[in-house]
Structures are given as structure tokens and as C-alpha cells.
């Protein structure tokens, strides 16, 4: 009697413990990341309750009056949600697709380069823009493109051309923003893919070379298929944030220039402008919560889809 109750549990418990012991070194290596996410992602979670309150400074989050879903109304009755969703999602798709394609291409090209010095310096120079703050980027772009005194304007004029008024032309900005984002993120992503390529089993390459495969064939039949899991994982990570925009980039490049909002306004910048005046934490948190919950379900959906295609590539 006793045995039948205790016994089925014991092995399960032991195996979990055993797993911990067995992989203690790996888990220990993960510890910084686990602590990081615990402190910065899990601990603040109860604070999301602020989205359902009318926040009072002197009462704090949990003692402020509860108002239900009132704070969520703001985004939906603004009449802007369609435009904002369109911009946010399209920019993110452009960033994810173009970004990954370009990063992949550069990583493969770098891998084919044999000159070590060139390879290292190219990598560093490509990585550099990643560290430049968006504020500086916006100044660079302004000084290149502004109509009266911009660098590009000077060149165009000295060549006898007519400089378009870029800062009044909403149509130009999707290209500029995507380009700037590529410039900033390519180096970083390239290094990730490059690391994955370096980690490949070199015997496959050697075998292919002996069998007479040319560079293009090696890339097509060996490098790309080997990178597939990395691509899928990065894609799954990225897609969860598809409703979230890079506020720093958009806000600094566009600022309060209402001429450009039609093609550049994303959820973050809209919320920021609306909330700047009323300084309403509850409403901005409501929007953030909405983005996160939708993002969460998109990740679940995408993961289920990948799992359906090939269970090995799914995140969980």
C-alpha cells in the first residue's frame, strides 16, 4: 500500500534532482542569464497590474483604485490603431527579413574571405554602428539629408541637381529607416551567424571540397542547411516583438515631425506623444501589456507552426 504511493513519485523526483546534479556545470553557466531574467523580467511582472488602475503617486501601484479595462480603451478609440499596426508590423517584417538575409549573406561572404587581417577589420568596422546611440545617428542623418545645409544637399546642388526636401517627404522614410536599421544591426547579426558557421563540422567542408564542390555549391548544400536551426531560432525570437517598435531609432530620426507620421508612426512613438502631455503611466502600461500579450501568442503560434513542420527546430 505504502509502496504503491511512494514508489511512482520517487523516481520522478530523483530524476529531476539527478538532472540538476548531472548538468550542474551547464546550469551554473546559465545562472547569470537566469538571474538577469528573474530580476528584470519576472520580478516586475506583478507591476503590470498598474495597467488596470488609476495610478496615484502617493498610494503606489497596488493601493491605487482599480479601473478594469478603462486604460485599454485609449488605443482602440483613437482611430489610429490600424495605421500604427500597419507601420509597426511592416517595419518589423522588413527588419527581420531583410536583416536576416543581409546578415546571412555577409556572414557567408566573411567566411569565404581568407585574408585574416581583412576579415577581422571588416568585422569590427561592420560592428561599430551597433554601438552608436540613436541620438547620434539622428544627428548624422540630419546633417546628411537636411535641405538647407545637408552634406548630400551640397553635393546634389554642386552637381546641378535638385535636392528633394527629405524631411517633408513621408514616402522617403521607410527606405531611410530600414537602411539605417540595417546599417546599425548588420554587424551584430553577422557575428552571430559567423559564429554558427565557424562552429560547423569542418570535415563536411573538406569532404565536399575533395568531391569537387565549388564555393557556390558548398554554400547552397552545406552552409545554408547547417544554419537553418539558427535562422529559425532567431526568427522565433524576433517575431515575438513584432508589435514592438524600436522607439529610440524612430523617435530620434523622426522626432515630432508631423509631416512624416503617416509612414513612420509606430505604436511606441504614438503612445509616447500622447502620454507626454498627460503623463499617464496606467495607459502606457496598458499598451505595453497589450503588445506583450499579443507578442506572446504570436510566438506560441509560430512555434507550433514550426513544430508542425519539423519538431527539431521548435523552441519548446
Amino acid at each position, binding site marked *: 500500500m505504502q509502496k504503491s504511493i511512494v514508489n511512482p513519485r520517487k523516481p520522478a523526483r530523483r530524476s529531476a534532482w539527478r538532472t540538476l546534479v548531472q548538468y550542474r556545470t551547464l546550469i551554473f553557466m546559465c545562472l547569470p542569464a537566469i538571474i538577469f531574467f528573474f530580476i528584470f523580467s519576472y520580478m516586475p511582472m506583478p507591476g503590470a497590474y498598474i495597467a488596470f488602475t*488609476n*495610478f*496615484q*503617486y*502617493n*498610494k503606489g501601484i497596488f493601493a491605487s483604485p482599480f479601473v478594469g479595462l*478603462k486604460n485599454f*480603451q*485609449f488605443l482602440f*478609440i*483613437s*482611430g*489610429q490603431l490600424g495605421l500604427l499596426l500597419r507601420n509597426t508590423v511592416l517595419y518589423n517584417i522588413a527588419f527581420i527579413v531583410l536583416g536576416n538575409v543581409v546578415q546571412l549573406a555577409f556572414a557567408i561572404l566573411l567566411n569565404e574571405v581568407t585574408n585574416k587581417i581583412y576579415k577581422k577589420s571588416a568585422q569590427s568596422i561592420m560592428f561599430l554602428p551597433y554601438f552608436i546611440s540613436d541620438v547620434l545617428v539622428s544627428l548624422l542623418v*540630419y546633417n546628411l539629408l*537636411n*535641405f*538647407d545645409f545637408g552634406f548630400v544637399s551640397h553635393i546634389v546642388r554642386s552637381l546641378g541637381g535638385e535636392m528633394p*526636401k527629405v*524631411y*517633408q517627404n513621408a514616402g522617403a522614410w521607410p527606405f531611410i529607416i530600414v537602411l539605417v536599421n540595417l546599417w546599425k544591426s548588420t554587424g551584430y547579426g553577422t557575428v552571430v551567424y559567423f559564429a554558427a558557421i565557424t562552429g560547423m563540422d569542418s570535415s563536411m567542408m573538406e569532404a565536399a571540397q575533395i568531391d569537387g564542390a565549388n564555393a557556390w555549391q558548398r554554400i547552397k548544400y552545406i552552409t545554408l542547411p547547417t544554419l537553418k536551426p539558427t535562422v529559425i531560432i532567431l526568427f522565433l525570437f524576433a517575431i515575438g516583438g513584432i508589435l514592438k517598435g524600436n522607439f529610440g531609432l524612430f523617435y530620434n530620426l*523622426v*522626432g*515630432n*515631425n*508631423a*509631416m512624416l*507620421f503617416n509612414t513612420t508612426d509606430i505604436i511606441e512613438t*504614438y503612445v509616447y*506623444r*500622447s*502620454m*507626454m*502631455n*498627460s*503623463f*499617464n*503611466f496606467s*495607459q502606457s502600461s496598458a499598451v505595453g501589456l497589450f503588445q506583450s500579450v499579443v507578442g506572446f501568442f504570436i510566438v506560441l503560434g509560430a512555434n507550433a507552426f514550426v513544430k508542425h513542420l519539423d519538431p527539431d527546430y521548435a523552441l519548446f
Partner: protein
Amino acid sequence: MKKLLAVFLAMVMLLGVVPALAEIDTSEHVKIVYLVTGDKPTNRTDEVLARINELLTEKVNAELEFRWIEWTDWQTQYNLALATQSGDIDLIGTATDWLDAWPNCQKGAFLPLSEEMLQTYAPQTWASVSEAHWNLCKYNGEIYLMPEDNYAQWTNHGFMYRQDWAREAGLENGVHSWADLAVYFQYIKDNKPDVIPWDANGNGSSYSPQMAGGWQTSHTGNIAIEGFPVAIFYGESKDNPYTLSRYYLEGDELVNFAKEMKKWADAGYWRADVLNYTGDVVAEMEEGKTGAHQHHTQTWTGERTTMERKQPGSDLGFFWFGEETGNLIALNITHGAMAVAAQSKHPERALMVYDLMRNDPEIYRLMQYGFEGEMYTVEDGKFSRPEGFEDSVDGVSFNFWWGRNDNLEYKNAQLDWDAIDAMYATYDQVKIDYPYGQYIYDNSMVGVLMDNLSNVYNTYMPRIVFGMNDDPEALVAEFRAALQSAGIEMVMEEIQNQLNAVYAK
């Protein structure tokens, strides 16, 4: 008998105050943190502060410490500091027009100040502010602000311009209307190739309300009501102040404004990329690279002297919005005020420190002018700086705009008081008192709609103000339609009801 009782009660109350004063316990030395807007000074402020702290320690066993809200992104940083307070700030410099005092008050950022507290811990301030003025500082029957109500200044906006260039442009008497301003700008455009007539930081969000409101003030009798997140709520006129104006919803004047600004934009009075420009436009004016600066009278009084030094003969003039129609509202007394932080651990001592900052001649003048003899001298009630004095190096910056006191002020001998007094005299002839001092907007009913309106305004108004459009008339129509669909009628109805509740006879 009743009278006797009343006298007796009054005496008890008076007596109640006196022993309380004697009983204040200041045995613990405390640090009072003072939240103030401004860039952290690099001049002799710390030296002066050390001296003031000696005096404060001696008098109330407390010392003062600054917490600066630097000008970069100050609106956000200021509100954030108030929202995240945890006993780390005690005194808060605030204002009902430019620092969101009432919204912050409604969100619980400030401590209500009971009459007993004020009488006990800030007796000089309590006595110097009239009952009528204290009433303007109340929300839900409680006092939250200590107003700067004994300091003469004007912060009405307008354009500073160079009278030397205006005279060259044929404007013998200077610029006194938007039409004159256009003549002035066109002259600069035609005759000074390296000068931008008006270089503006269009990236900032404050230009829209200032320019649009400026035109409105100059062309209608409308009066701006303070304390809204969007500057589109105006009273009809001084004879009918408690009816909301429909200026932004109908009528030709906004269309005329849009058309005129479109003309100015096309004529090149500002740079084509004005909406993204963030340069230091005051420095540009001082270097002679731009011909005008849009700000308020108080700025002009100081800038006139600076300009005379850097651009001799510039004879900086000031065209004030509303000059054509004589539409001018005197400064609201809560344009500057001090509040005590809701979470302050030492509110009593904070009040005692404030009382001294505002009323103690020695401390006040140290804050405002620095060490006498060394940093300034006084003659005929006016102060002068020594030769070669540079404010950014040798001066003192307490940015104490929350309780300046004319009883203790010295006029600056270096300012051009003939010009300033003449301007003030003109103002005094036409000004009326701010009619909405008793009214505090309650955002709880239509807050969501207000955020919508705010966004509509910020989307359209910069394009109207800086003429960034092909068809101003169509843009105004579009703006008005957007206001309608964002719920302007409901918001105006709510505000009108709130106004009626306060001002119904």
C-alpha cells in the same frame, strides 16, 4: 455672551499658535532636498549654498540640497521625479501653467498643507499671502501650493527682434503686428543673405501652442485657460470669459493663420527642415545669424542687454502677442509656486526652510545675487556686477522661481529699465487679471479623449504653424475633422460644465 465667547475662542486660537512655535523640535539635523528645473550650475552656486547651509543649520538645524531637472527633456524628467518620489525630495518648485502643478496634485504628488502647518512652520509666508491668493492654491479645499505672488514679471510670449534692422526695413516705430513681422522677415530675407529671418527649433513641442495661440491672441479676444494637456481651450473674451471659444472648430481666423504661415514658409523665413532642427537659436541671434527669437517678456528684459553687448546697436525690441488687439492677461500667481513632496519625511522642516528662503533677507539675497561686495554691489536699490563678471562662471544659480519676493529684490542696474518700464507701463494699460484662477481642470471624465485630442493637435498643428503643407485651407479642414472624430465636442461640453460649476452666478 456670544461675542465674549468668540473673543475667547480667538484668543485660544492665537495662543495655540504661539506655544506651537516654541515647541518645534529641531534637535535632529535634516537635509531638505529641493527639486528644481535647470542645468546643474558650474558657477559659484556650491560656495554660496555652503554659506546658506551654515545659516540654515543655525536657524532651523537643516541644510538644503539641490536635485536638478536638467533642461534636456525636462517635462518628462520632472514628472518622472514626482511620480517616483520615495522620500528623496522635500521641496518641489512647480507651476500651474508650465509645470503641470494641478495634474500632479490630482495624482497625489504633493502634500496638502493645513493652515496650522503653514501658520506654525511658515509663518512669514502665511502672513504675506492674502486669503484670496491662498484660495487660488487650493484643490478640493486644501492648500497645496505656496504661490510666488509678490514678484512683478511678465511671461507673455511674443517675438524679440532687432530694431536696427526694423528701421532699415522702413518700420520706423518697430514691429507691432504680425503684418509688421512679415515685412521685417522679408527685409532680412532680401538683404541679409547669411541670416535666417527666424531660426526656430520646430522640433520642440512648445512652438505650436505659442505660435497658434499668439496669432489667436492677436486676432481675437480669446483668453487661454491653463492646465490642459492640449492648448485649444480658450474663453470667448474678457466680457464673456466663461464660455468656451470655438476658434479651433470653426471660423476663418485659423485658416488665415495657416495661409499666412504657408506664405512665410514658402518665402523662406525659417529653414526648410525646421521641424527637425534642434540648434541653439538664442546663440545664433547673439551671433547675428538670425533676426528674431520667439519667447516671453521676462527673457527679453535680459536678452536686450546681452544683445546690446554682443550686437551693439541692435536695440532689441519685443512684439507681444495680442498687441494689435490689446489682448493681454496678467500673470497668474501660480506661474511659480513651491509645493511639499507627498512622501517628504520632513515636511515641517521643509516649510521652515522655505519660509527662510523666501523671507530671510540674508538667505534670499545670497540665493539671488551671491556674496555682497564680492559678487555684487548695491546702489540706489539696484545691484551691479563687478567688471568682467560672467554669470556662468562667477554667478549663483538657485533657479528660485517659486517664491521670489519684491520686498527683498534689487533691480539689476545693468538692465535697460527705461525700455522695460515703458513696456510694463504699456502692459498695465491693457492687462486684465487671469479669470480662471479658481478653476482646476478635472481629467477623470474625458481623459482618454483628451489624449486623442493631444495627438491630433501634435499631428496637425506643427504643419500649420510652419506652413508645411500644399493647401493650408484643406489642412485646417482636415485638422478640424480629426478633432471632431477624436471627440472634441464631448470634451468641450465637459469642460464647459466644469467651468459652469465654478463660475455660475
